[in-house]
């Protein structure tokens, strides 16, 4: 287990003066898909934000080891360069900033960080078009401003598209299923499944079991009051669906 991609030990975090995570432990190996489930207010979104390095969340205790490094020492963008990707629950609209330009800037920062040559516009466009076709997205997406005027489904698909372009080692999908109709849900899950690989881990954070029918996890964790209270295989998700969160919380 020493070659874990992500090792979180006794993580405590607070935001707006409130303790949210109260001793969370989790280990993720390369290639695995984990699901973190939990009721509203259990700390699910905080987990993703803390891993990605959001400054308004303060880590008060515990360690996060990622690829053998102390993640807490790294800035948000360094974490991204190291291969951490957070698919936002509410992808941010950035009027006036072109999607292609945005993504090219992101990809080239990562390449620069890794000591790889930056892509010029032509190479980048080629790459992007290939990824678009794999995810069945229209290239008119590229001409628009980041997430601006996108429907809920388009925003979530755009997140997965960014993930496809940036090729992270660890992707955290924060409530990616929220607000999606069944067709969009399938499309998003299909995109994620195409991105599953030996050396990439995915953590799906969700309230409902629904998404896990399409993205089948290796491990399922139940988060309640800032702690993992139960872990198991994919059948745990079904059990939760039938019996509700009250069952684990009271257990």
């Amino acid at each position, binding site marked *: 287990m020493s070659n874990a991609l992500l090792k979180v030990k006794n993580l405590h975090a607070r935001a707006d003066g409130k303790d949210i995570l109260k001793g969370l432990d989790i280990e993720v190996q390369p290639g695995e898909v984990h699901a973190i489930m939990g009721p509203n207010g259990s700390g699910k979104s905080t987990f993703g934000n803390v891993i990605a390095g959001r400054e308004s969340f303060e880590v008060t205790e515990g360690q996060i080891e990622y690829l053998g490094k102390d993640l807490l020492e790294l800035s948000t963008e360094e974490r991204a360069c190291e291969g951490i990707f957070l698919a936002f629950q509410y992808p941010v609209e*950035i009027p006036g900033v072109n999607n292609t330009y945005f993504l090219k800037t992101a990809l080239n920062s990562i390449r620069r960080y890794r000591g790889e040559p930056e892509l010029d516009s032509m190479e980048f466009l080629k790459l992007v078009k290939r990824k678009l076709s794999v995810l069945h997205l229209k290239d008119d997406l590229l001409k628009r401003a980041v997430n601006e005027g996108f429907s809920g489904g388009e925003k979530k698909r755009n997140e997965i598209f960014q993930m496809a372009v940036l090729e992270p080692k660890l992707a955290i999908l924060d409530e990616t299923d929220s607000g999606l109709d069944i067709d969009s849900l399938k499309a998003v899950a299909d995109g994620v499944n195409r991105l599953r690989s030996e050396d990439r881990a995915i953590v799906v954070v969700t309230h409902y079991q629904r998404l896990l029918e399409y993205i089948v996890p290796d491990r399922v964790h139940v988060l309640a009051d800032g702690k993992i209270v139960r872990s198991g295989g994919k059948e745990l998700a079904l059990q939760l669906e039938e019996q509700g969160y009250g069952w684990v919380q009271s257990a």
Partner: protein
Amino acid sequence: MSLYEQAVALAPVDRLVWASQWRQQAISALQSVSLPSARDEDWKYTTLRSLERAQLVTAPRQASNDAVSLPASFAGRTLVFVDGHYDTSLSDSSAIDDLDVTALSAIESDPQFDNWLGKLPEGNAESLATLNTAMMTDGVLVRVGATVADPIAVVFLSNGSTERALPSSFVRNIIQAESGAGVSIVEFHASATAGKSLSHSWTQLNVEKGATVELSRMYAHGEAAQLVTRLDAELAASSTLRLHNLDVGGKLTRHDINVELKGEGANLLIGGAYVADGRSHIDQHHRVDHRVPNCTSNDVFRGVVAGKGRAVFNAKAIVHPGADGTEAHQNNANLMLSRDSEVDTKPELQIHADDVKCSHGATIGQLDETAMFYLRTRAIAEADARALLTEGFCTEALQTITDESTRVWFTQALATKLRGQST
């Protein structure tokens, strides 16, 4: 010296003979006005006090080719004025069909001039316009009768000085788009040499029935330059004016934009961006009069203030009785990046009809923390993320420029300014 004394001393009696009757009238009107003060509501936040003590002088009228720094990508034909005088050697005066572009100084007379030059606003708040009529040396006349594909650029360069006296120039531009015509014009104002200067420019615009004019103006003066401009436009039925302003320089800038929507179905867009950094003070004053039914106006400005910069914004939309079916919207958003900067904004609606849809919004704030985080999770470094968001924030107001070579020129000038600006 009073404005009147300055005008008597400097008025160019030798030029624009046809203008002399208006010039004389303006000079005598100056006897009873002075510079606007904070008591004039429209000058609450901007003072011209430094002009009270200034001694205006004429400028050398010389500039090198390098000063005319138009981007290679810009497709249009160019006229250049230096210190208020047409410069044939720097200009491209080749003829274009359906388009009449001439320096005023090259015109013997014109029956329409009375309409233009006879307009003399009254009161202290307008005293610089009166001074313009008294002092103007030249300017451009654009008359267009059909749709012209390529844009036209009119460049105004000012020489600066480090001496006590203040080099000044006064230009008057007249743009007339005849029925059904379409044209895109760029006014580019910049310093030819560093140092202080005063440039006053007054553009009068007549958009006739069904015509479309796109006028894009960029002000990129040096940090000691003072600039006061005025624009008066009249829009006839079903006509369109798209007016854009980009301010990326100067020490003191004041723009007055007055638009009269006089024909039904006229459309007006005023869009723009400003960056007030260093010690720069940029003041936008817009007034839109909806005089007839079914016209629309949109006024969208984005601004960044940094350093000791200060931005002032006042956009007024007045819907007159009977102007039903009016849509008028105003939006001014500002990013404040430094401790010593200041923003004073005041969108304003005066509505005297009931079947209208009007709104305005104004914000002052910082970059959105969530957006910053989002960019940084996508591996974009903090400083780059800040620049990208700031650029995106401002650029939005220039995206409505339809002539592509102009839009590219303006957005790049804005980006260059933002990247060079210290916070």
